[in-house]
């Protein structure tokens, strides 16, 4: 099950906790992986850990030109892109009344516009191959909203609508487009929370705990696999029951 031998996968945000776990899962299933992110050092470290079949492709997704180049660089390094995982994302939290145009725009640019451009950039190869997997990482917040995250929630809801629209268009070509919507996941970001904050969060989660990056990676691996050929336009919620959608 879930054998990706001979497939190539581009993962954005691979320097982060969830992206790194996704890269490891796809690599572990046999895929050649392109690790993209803004910070080169953690990408190099991850590539060294993975050994063969790992390429480092640094890219700042708020730089429109760099975004346009990334699919080409990935195709050159790996011979093509069969699987695209748009995992990279940023937050610029602020109360709606205080949110600046810049905070709004930065989040939309990276989380939604870069995702759109990367999808577009890999489609030609996938159309020709009559096979492709696109997995866009959304968020539970995209469905439920969250105070202080009007920009982030909009971008993550946008990712779902965009994925569904694209899924319609390319389904007949053997390309699936899905979203994974994580809830609270234990990463470097949530490590900073106090125990009190953590217990408050956990009280809202029926599973009573935060998720692990591996648990997101497993969902991505499934959607990237040949076995998931008949799943498209779906949003897989991985949130411990926090929002049952």
């Amino acid at each position, binding site marked *: 099950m879930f054998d990706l031998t001979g497939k190539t996968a581009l993962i954005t945000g691979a320097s982060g906790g969830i992206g790194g776990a996704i890269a490891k899962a796809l690599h572990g299933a046999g895929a050649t992986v392109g690790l993209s992110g803004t910070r080169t050092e953690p990408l190099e470290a991850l590539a060294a850990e993975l050994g063969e079949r790992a390429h480092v492709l640094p890219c700042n997704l708020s730089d429109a030109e760099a975004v346009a180049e990334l699919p080409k660089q990935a195709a050159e390094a790996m011979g093509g892109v069969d699987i695209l995982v748009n995992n990279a994302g940023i937050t610029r939290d602020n109360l709606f009344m205080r949110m600046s145009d810049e905070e709004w725009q930065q989040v939309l640019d990276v989380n939604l516009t870069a995702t759109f451009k990367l999808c577009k950039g890999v489609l*030609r190869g996938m*159309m*020709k191959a009559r096979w492709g997997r696109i997995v866009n990482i959304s968020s539970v917040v995209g469905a439920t909203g969250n105070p202080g995250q009007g920009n982030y929630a909009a971008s993550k809801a946008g990712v779902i609508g965009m994925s569904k629209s694209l899924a319609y*268009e*390319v389904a*007949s*070509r053997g390309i699936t487009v899905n979203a994974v919507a994580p809830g609270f996941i234990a990463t470097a970001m949530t490590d900073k929370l106090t125990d009190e904050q953590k217990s408050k969060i956990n009280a809202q989660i029926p599973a009573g705990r935060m998720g692990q990056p591996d648990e997101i990676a497993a969902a991505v691996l499934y959607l990237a696999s040949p076995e998931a050929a008949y799943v498209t336009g779906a949003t897989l919620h991985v949130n411990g029951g926090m929002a049952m959608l």
Partner: protein
Amino acid sequence: MSDVADRVKKIVVEHLGVEEDKVTESASFIDDLGADSLDTVELVMAFEEEFGIEIPDDAAETIQTFGDAVKFITEAS
């Protein structure tokens, strides 16, 4: 028939799975040859590769028939 027309016709026949004699000058990819809108995008991609040219999106929209394609490519290459 010109060399360009022959090559274009070959791509159209292969891609859309239609009989060669259906691919006439005025044959519309969508109305006469059974292409869907995504097929027309793929045809344009195939033309770009075959002839080593770039067909911008606004130009691609004007290529509706076999004759349109031959004319555009002849002028572009």
